[in-house]
């Protein structure tokens, strides 16, 4: 089945994502930032669906919007935000930060305008529809990338222990 109205939905979700991202870095209240980040993540999951990556889209919704953001909201609940909301919102080196970010943006613009022909600019192919997506990912994940998968599980174990050690009052 060929997709319908792809440009419209691409620009819609891109706009939602960028507005959500701008809201994340401009809101004074961290709770509002977290909710805007959830909106941006859901829009990004929609873009994954448009790229024929339904498994990654599901992981994005369940793990990011459902798991990591709940963790963020819990921590916002634990630390008191009233005082920091009344203070100024930009750190002491924000001028240098803006300069560095502008330089990075100039680099991106230069790369994407000058190197447009190097980057693949033909239309996205539809061949991805042929294979079952989750099965392909599982075959790669438990075959070719088995070692990296085990390292990732070890990383999660280290992160669990680290988070408990950090957050505990007395070991």
């Amino acid at each position, binding site marked *: 089945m060929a997709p319908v109205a792809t440009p419209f939905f691409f620009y819609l979700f891109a706009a939602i994502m960028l507005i959500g991202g701008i809201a994340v870095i401009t809101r004074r209240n961290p709770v509002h930032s977290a909710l805007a980040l959830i909106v941006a993540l859901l829009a990004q999951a929609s873009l994954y669906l448009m790229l024929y990556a339904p498994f990654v889209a599901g992981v994005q919704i369940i793990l990011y919007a459902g798991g990591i953001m709940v963790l963020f909201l819990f921590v916002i609940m634990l630390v008191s935000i009233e005082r*920091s909301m009344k203070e100024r919102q930009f750190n002491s080196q924000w001028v240098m930060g803006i300069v560095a970010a502008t330089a990075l943006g100039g680099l991106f613009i230069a790369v994407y305008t000058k190197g447009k022909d190097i980057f693949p600019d033909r239309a996205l192919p539809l061949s991805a529809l042929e294979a079952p997506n989750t099965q392909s990912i599982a075959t790669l994940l438990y075959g070719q990338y088995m070692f990296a998968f085990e390292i990732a599980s070890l990383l999660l174990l280290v992160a669990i222990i680290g988070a408990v050690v950090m957050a505990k009052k007395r070991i």
Partner: protein
Amino acid sequence: MESMLHITTLHYLVLGAALFLLGVIGVLTRRNVVIVLMSIELILNAVNLNLVAFSHYWQGMPARLGGGATAVHGQVFAIFVITDAAAEAAVGLGILIAFFRNKETVNVDEINLLKW
């Protein structure tokens, strides 16, 4: 106008670059540690969008070059990046709670205990 209406891999790459830039601005200028961590999540998501877009592009390559419909290497990498983001968020927020217990603040300007 014709190139605007024809969604290619480059569109996704430019969107990813814009999101990355937003995340960088947030990390470099905001004062609240929680929002800095959320900006790092934005950066990781921009990378993920690039990875999935390239994965889709690669699926259209001929199979003799390693492409084909089942070559979803970029999506596997995106899953690894999401795992990494989960670990990073857990450890970062743990550090944040420990820091808040000691200094009663969430401002990055006051995180200077190791600075001489």
